[in-house]
């Protein structure tokens, strides 16, 4: 190996294993060539200086990061918290009861939807109870309204009142949805209190 080859090889073979055939050749050349030996020592010195800059991190400082990360995970995803989180005795009973409530409300909702779609009440009863006024058909002369028109005597017109009671499926649909909403809200609040 001559000096030019050695100069090219030094950066490449710097961290090659000592048994590497080209490194052996390089080291043999360095022993006989002071110029390449000086170059080699420059590499050694710069490498040593780089290693002197190495940051040593203490276990305590690294542990702070560990705690921070775990806290952040549990803060942002409280349901991942181990221990008495999900399986707490009292909250499990509450959860069970709330789930039953939700199931009941959903059943009521489904029944009322089915009733509403399959067993529609007669038109005249709907008009009478809900206050929905029939519409006219354009081009037809036979249309007559059942809604009492008060005329234009200048008096106060009665407001339309939706007279919907427990006999109407819509009533139960709304009620059950409110129930589900309330149960879900309670579950979320309970979860938050448990974590805090």
């Amino acid at each position, binding site marked *: 190996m001559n000096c030019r080859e050695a100069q090219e090889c030094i950066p490449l073979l710097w961290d090659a294993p000592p048994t590497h055939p080209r490194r052996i050749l390089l080291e043999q050349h360095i022993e006989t060539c002071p110029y390449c030996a000086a170059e080699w020592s420059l590499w050694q010195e710069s490498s040593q200086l780089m290693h002197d800059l190495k*940051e040593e991190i203490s276990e305590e400082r690294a542990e702070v990061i560990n705690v*921070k*990360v775990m806290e952040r995970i549990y803060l942002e995803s409280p349901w991942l918290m181990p221990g008495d989180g999900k399986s707490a005795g009292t909250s499990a009973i509450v959860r069970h009861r709330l789930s039953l409530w939700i199931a009941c409300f959903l059943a009521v909702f489904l029944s009322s939807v089915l009733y509403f779609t399959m067993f529609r009440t007669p038109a005249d009863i709907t008009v009478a109870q809900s206050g929905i006024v029939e519409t006219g058909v354009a081009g037809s002369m036979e249309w007559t309204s059942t809604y009492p028109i008060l005329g234009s005597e200048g008096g106060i017109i009665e407001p339309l009142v939706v007279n919907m009671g427990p006999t109407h499926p819509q009533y139960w649909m709304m009620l059950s949805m409110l129930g589900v909403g309330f149960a879900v809200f309670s579950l979320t609040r309970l979860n938050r209190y448990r974590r805090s």
Partner: protein
Amino acid sequence: MTDSQLIQEIKQGNTELYSELMRRYQRKILAFVYHMLRNSQMELIAEDLCSETFYKAFRSLHSFREVDASFSTWLYTIARNTVLSELRKNRAGNVSLEESGYTPVAPFEVAPEQAALRKERMNLVREAINNLPEKQRSALILREYDQMDYQEIAEILDQSVSSVKSLLFRARSSVKLQLESYFNEPEVEEQVERV
């Protein structure tokens, strides 16, 4: 318990085991982040970025597949991306070593003039590393400080092994070139003259 066993357990819901998994890498990742950052004024950011790295890793753990990479290289990739994105944000705030007040700690008691010389050289080395293009710097740090092999570095940098060798070659040559003037050049010249 191996890394993959821990990861499986964490994926199945044993979140508290993530703390154990972090413990295996937290010092290495924090050191890597320190080395990647340009100056010691960003020390606090290094810790924040390290936390960010582990948090991101936890959030993406479900998508981690050991077939593609080891957990270690995957984690280093996240750390590197996190640091680079922070450096891009703080590009304007690049503070010099003198301004940063960075003082490397001497490992043993030395004479004041020797300590001063050593400090000067170490500042120079740090500056030489910081002046490298990002990929060269990453490759050099992973190789010199984290003792990684070419394959691992290639996975982290998303490069081929031969590219990594080339990056390291250029990085070392550049660092050496920047340091050359501070070494005993007269001695070298004398030796050359004698030859």
